[in-house]
């Protein structure tokens, strides 16, 4: 069964006022974190258009992470499906194995410029944890990763990779023992060690300015697609299709195309055992408005506002 919710995406403001995207976003955080996100917002405002910063980040994206990633014509899949010409943007070939590296390199470099020595991060499937460990290692920063103990069980290999890269992984046993509780625990760490610590959020979530920062660092995906498509055809792609968990790969892909009305944008959420079963991760399709992890957004929650467990066979889409 497919549920489809159409979302009107207007051209997002480059630097949203008060961190608001319509009525969504914002900053709902304990007061102790306000100076930290203000410091981050100011630092990012200053550095985002600085050519030295862009040049340095570009260097690491190319030489350390392996950008650009191929835009591959999936001929067999195209023939098999028998409709559209299907191209795959191979973010899986990026160093670390996922698009997460784009954002981790960007934010670690930003953290370094801000003079922070210690990076903390949450991770679900472990890809963001691996990306963080990798980026922290290259910039000589200390990394500590929070990961739900259930996710650790599901994704042991990524735990091993993070540790190999020199990160310390804290298993999270509170609440549902998965991603949302890993975020809670990382936020608690940040509240406690706010002065010297940089919190590296892995998706377009959290209080402003995080969604904006992650969007910007991931938009390298969409920008590359744009120029790679030009080598193939003079027209724009008919559609872009992305999976949506936290939304960073989708946002990074969609953002440079938002003002192009000829391109349809499809975000696909994990259906789990079906929407009606309640065991799924389709936050945007089946969720309702709420406040969690510093922002106003769509959430899977019960009638009283308690956050529900998400479900997907894929750790990372839940």
């Amino acid at each position: 069964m497919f549920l489809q919710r159409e979302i009107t995406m207007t051209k997002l403001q480059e630097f949203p006022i008060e961190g608001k995207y319509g009525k969504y976003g914002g900053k709902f955080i304990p007061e102790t974190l306000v100076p930290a996100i203000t410091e981050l917002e100011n630092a990012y405002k200053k550095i985002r258009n600085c050519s030295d910063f862009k040049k340095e980040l570009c260097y690491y994206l190319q030489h350390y992470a392996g950008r650009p990633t191929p835009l591959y014509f999936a001929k067999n899949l195209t023939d098999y499906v028998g409709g559209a010409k299907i191209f795959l943007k191979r973010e899986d070939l990026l160093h670390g194995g996922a698009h997460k590296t784009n954002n981790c390199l960007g934010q670690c470099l930003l953290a370094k410029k801000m003079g922070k020595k210690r990076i903390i991060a949450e991770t679900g499937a472990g890809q963001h944890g691996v990306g963080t460990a990798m980026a922290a290692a290259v910039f000589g920063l200390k990394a500590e990763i929070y990961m739900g103990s259930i996710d650790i069980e599901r994704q042991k290999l990524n735990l091993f990779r993070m540790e190999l890269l020199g990160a310390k992984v804290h298993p999270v046993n509170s609440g549902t023992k998965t991603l949302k509780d890993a975020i809670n625990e990382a936020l608690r760490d940040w509240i406690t060690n706010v002065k010297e610590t940089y919190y590296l959020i892995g998706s377009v979530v959290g209080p402003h300015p995080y969604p904006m920062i992650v969007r910007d660092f991931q938009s390298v995906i969409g920008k590359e697609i744009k120029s790679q498509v030009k080598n193939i055809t003079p027209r724009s792609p008919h559609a872009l299709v992305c999976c949506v968990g936290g939304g960073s790969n989708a946002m990074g892909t969609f953002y440079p195309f938002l003002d192009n009305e000829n391109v349809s944008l499809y975000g696909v959420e994990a259906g789990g055992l079906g929407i009606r079963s309640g065991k799924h991760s389709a936050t945007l399709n089946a969720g309702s408005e709420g406040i969690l992890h510093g922002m106003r957004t769509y959430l899977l929650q019960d009638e009283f506002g308690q956050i529900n467990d998400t479900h997907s066979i894929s750790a990372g889409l839940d």
Partner: protein
Amino acid sequence: MKKVSYLQNNRIKKKFSKLRTDKEKGLICYVMGGYPDPITSEKIISSIVDGGADIIEIGIPFSDPIADGPIIQEASFKALQKGVNPDICLNLIKKIRNRYPDLPILIMTYSNILQKKGFEKFMRMAKGAGIDGFILPDMTIEESAEYLEYSKKLELATVFLVAPNTSDFRIRKTLEVSTGFVYVVSVYGTTGIRNSFSNYTLTAIRNIKRISANRNNISVGFGISTPHQIKIMSKYGADAVIVGSAIIEMINRHKDDNIHILGNKLKNYVSSLKDACKSK
């Protein structure tokens, strides 16, 4: 600085006036609503009030309490597992209100509990149950327009938090919109018992006291559990102290005991804390 003065008949305001006259510091006690179960919870609150608590904060459990340390997190989690919800907590508040008509009662919870029902609707229900104000640790002044509007309409206090790293400029802005009292977070960290406090805590209290210049009631919380700590906080300018995790821990320690034993332990503990609020 303009001072919000819509709380003419609010019990919190009256309580602080009385504390001033009596030259006492206020004792604010936090309990998790419905923990360990709704019936015991009601008895716990009575024991605490009988022990001398001036103001009661009732927590509504939330699935993702980011400002809370392990003790309150666990109490939230267990309360939710037992089916405690905001309706049950409001019912509990009604009962407490009937028994103690003059007791100042606040709800402490996270913004999503209000958001889900709609700020106006939830706040109206809570007012109807008998509360005097809200403490929302994840509500920033930037996001508070709707919350402030209905608080004013319903004559509910809006207690905002100030942290040790909050700038003087922001302290001023926060004091302007805080009514009832302002909640000074004593430490970098989440709720939970601390053995000692650093100098930065005392500096922060003194600084907020200076900026407020007695226009706000300054309540200090996070980590406080002993009479000695209360005396220190008072000395540096606190008008009231907030004790939470230590109470939950006492409940946990006596969870297998008879409710009368727990009730007496809590009453004695709270009364020892209140004594420290009275000492000069």
